[in-house]
């Protein structure tokens, strides 16, 4: 009889399986075997459906949280881009450290996206999608920031030695044409590249956050919106 408990989702079984098995054992002398079996099968099916709904809700929340992380990262990067290129511009090509720090910042944020998603009950799909979308948003918006900065403060940006050298070897007719042509390539590369990298890093973050389930962790990590019929 208790083998029917194996029909429940593994996650549910891990938390409640032992208790349910004991309850079935306690009920057996006074309740018919068929009634218990029908009830267990029906409830196991319900648990699978409910788990699917839970994961969908958690996945969507993970994606929204990833978008929030992406927006925050983009704001930070935009400030850094304006400061380095406009407020304290350098004519020499010495921005290796700020660029490295920026990339590490992005990678950490994408990893964190997956960790947060896993902590809040998102499944593998939710973690990957959250990272993919967050990375793509960071790539697209950061390129847009570069487009604005480079075009609005073209006279300042055009003083950079890397840009002067690049223009000389590009065959472009003007600095604006050279910069904007480069930005199109960067938009595709950063959006797609950071999207793919985001998916991988977010999944890695999700795996790193995985830990054995306890009653308290389930209770605390899977806060639903109360959608009770009574309200």
């Amino acid at each position, binding site marked *: 009889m208790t083998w029917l408990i194996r029909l429940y989702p593994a996650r549910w079984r891990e938390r409640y399986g032992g208790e*349910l098995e004991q309850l079935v054992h306690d*009920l057996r002398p006074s309740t018919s075997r068929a009634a218990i079996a029908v009830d267990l099968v029906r409830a196991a099916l319900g648990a699978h459906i409910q788990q699917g709904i839970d994961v969908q809700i958690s996945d969507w929340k993970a994606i929204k949280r990833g978008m929030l992380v992406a927006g925050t990262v983009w704001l930070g990067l935009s400030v850094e881009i304006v400061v380095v290129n406009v407020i304290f511009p350098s004519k020499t090509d010495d921005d290796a450290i700020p660029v490295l720090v920026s990339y590490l910042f992005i990678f950490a944020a994408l990893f964190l996206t997956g960790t947060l998603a896993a902590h809040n009950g998102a499944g593998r799909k939710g973690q990957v999608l959250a990272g993919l979308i967050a990375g793509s948003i960071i790539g697209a918006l950061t390129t847009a920031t570069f487009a604005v900065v480079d075009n609005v403060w073209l006279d300042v940006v055009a003083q950079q030695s890397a840009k002067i050298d690049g223009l000389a070897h590009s065959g472009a007719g003007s600095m604006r044409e050279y910069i904007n042509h480069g930005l199109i390539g960067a938009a595709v590369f950063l959006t797609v590249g950071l999207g793919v990298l985001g998916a991988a890093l977010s999944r890695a973050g999700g795996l790193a956050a995985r830990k054995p389930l306890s009653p308290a962790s389930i209770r605390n990590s899977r806060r639903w919106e109360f959608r009770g019929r009574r309200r």
Partner: protein
Amino acid sequence: MEARFAEPSVLILASLSSGPKHGYALIKDIEQIADTTLGPGTLYGALTRLVQHGLVEALPAQDRRRPYRITPAGAAAARAYLQHVQRVATVGLKRLEAYA
């Protein structure tokens, strides 16, 4: 024909209002107060939802039997729901008297 409408969550909250109980004790208590027998799967399906909503909390297990306790939020939700049902029942019964 007698129909019973109370859903398992309400029955569990009502039962736990008199103190913590494990699964078997809940089923037996609900049989007494509502003349309804919940199946083990039905009981645990409802308990799972109540725990997730923070309306009920698990206490440390005794052997393999884990008692559950109603939370303040659970008590408030049950009270609000039962008062609502009571209002509806009062109006419904008055109208049914007039109908008869």
